[in-house]
């Protein structure tokens, strides 16, 4: 197997994810802030959590760039796909 690399502290990542989830819940139901700002912050927290899972649990941080590209390329394509749909129906 060719996956030997420095191992991250998985429990620390777990703690980050738990704290970020608690922060999301507090932001959604406790903090009295503007809806648009709340939406942006919630999306930011969700993407942050997803990035932590991708980088440390799926080990993308330690993979070769060739494999990282394979994982990253669908993301902008998905965004383009969604924006194209929005442009037709909303804007």
């Amino acid at each position, binding site marked *: *197997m*060719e*996956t*030997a690399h420095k*191992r991250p502290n*998985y*429990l620390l*990542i*777990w703690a980050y*994810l*738990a704290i970020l*989830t608690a922060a*999301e*819940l507090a*932001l*959604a*139901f406790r903090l009295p802030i503007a809806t648009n700002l709340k*939406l942006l912050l*919630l*999306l930011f*927290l*969700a*993407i942050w*959590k*997803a990035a932590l*899972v*991708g980088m*440390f*649990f*799926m080990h993308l941080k330690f993979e*070769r760039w*060739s*494999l990282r590209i*394979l*994982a990253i*390329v*669908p*993301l902008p*394509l*998905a*965004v383009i*796909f*969604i924006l194209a*749909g*929005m442009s037709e*129906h*909303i804007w």
Partner: protein
Amino acid sequence: MTHAAATVDQMQPPFPAERGLDVYNKKLGMWVFLASEVMFFAALIGTYIILRFGAPGEWAKPGIVLNIQITAFNTFLLICSSVSMVKAYAAIQDGDVGKMRFWLLLTILGGATFVGIQIFEYVHLVERGFVPSGAREGSEIADLVAKGTLPAATIGLYGSTFFTMTGFHGFHVTCGVISMTYLFFTKALPGKYSRSDYAGIETVGLYWHFVDLVWIILFTIVYLI
């Protein structure tokens, strides 16, 4: 004969082929599959965004129909199962088969509990009258729509998008639990994984973390926003 042998070699390269990306085949195959899964969930999430922001009225406020506490617990459970999966992977990398079995079993239990809680949530929602078509007549949810607590114009879209997205995700979790259970009984328990061969654990782990990653996004956009 030489020509025939060369033809056979080209058609069936020696296993494992590790050219190009320099990644073994199972792992590369899983990453290609996950790339297609990104587009699958992008279609679902994109449709949801288009329907929600192009809807002819307000969307239901979070927490009125859906039980946030139980889903937050379920989210935490899925995150924990992702950690246990990666611990199983780390254990077999170290050659510790016993620990790998323990963590894999814990991941299976976590995933199965997630599905169980989701089924419980669905049953509870349907009992209250929240169905894929919106609100069932004469139900508690229909009363909330009649009182104006829930918007009448978008309750149908809310129901259909909620059940479609969470349903497809639940299906993926179920597939993951079945795959891990199969690996547990056919490979992990008989001791077929070792420090030098743990491809099954790594590839099913990638799938499991992806399912967790998708839920992180779905939880935010469906339950919190």
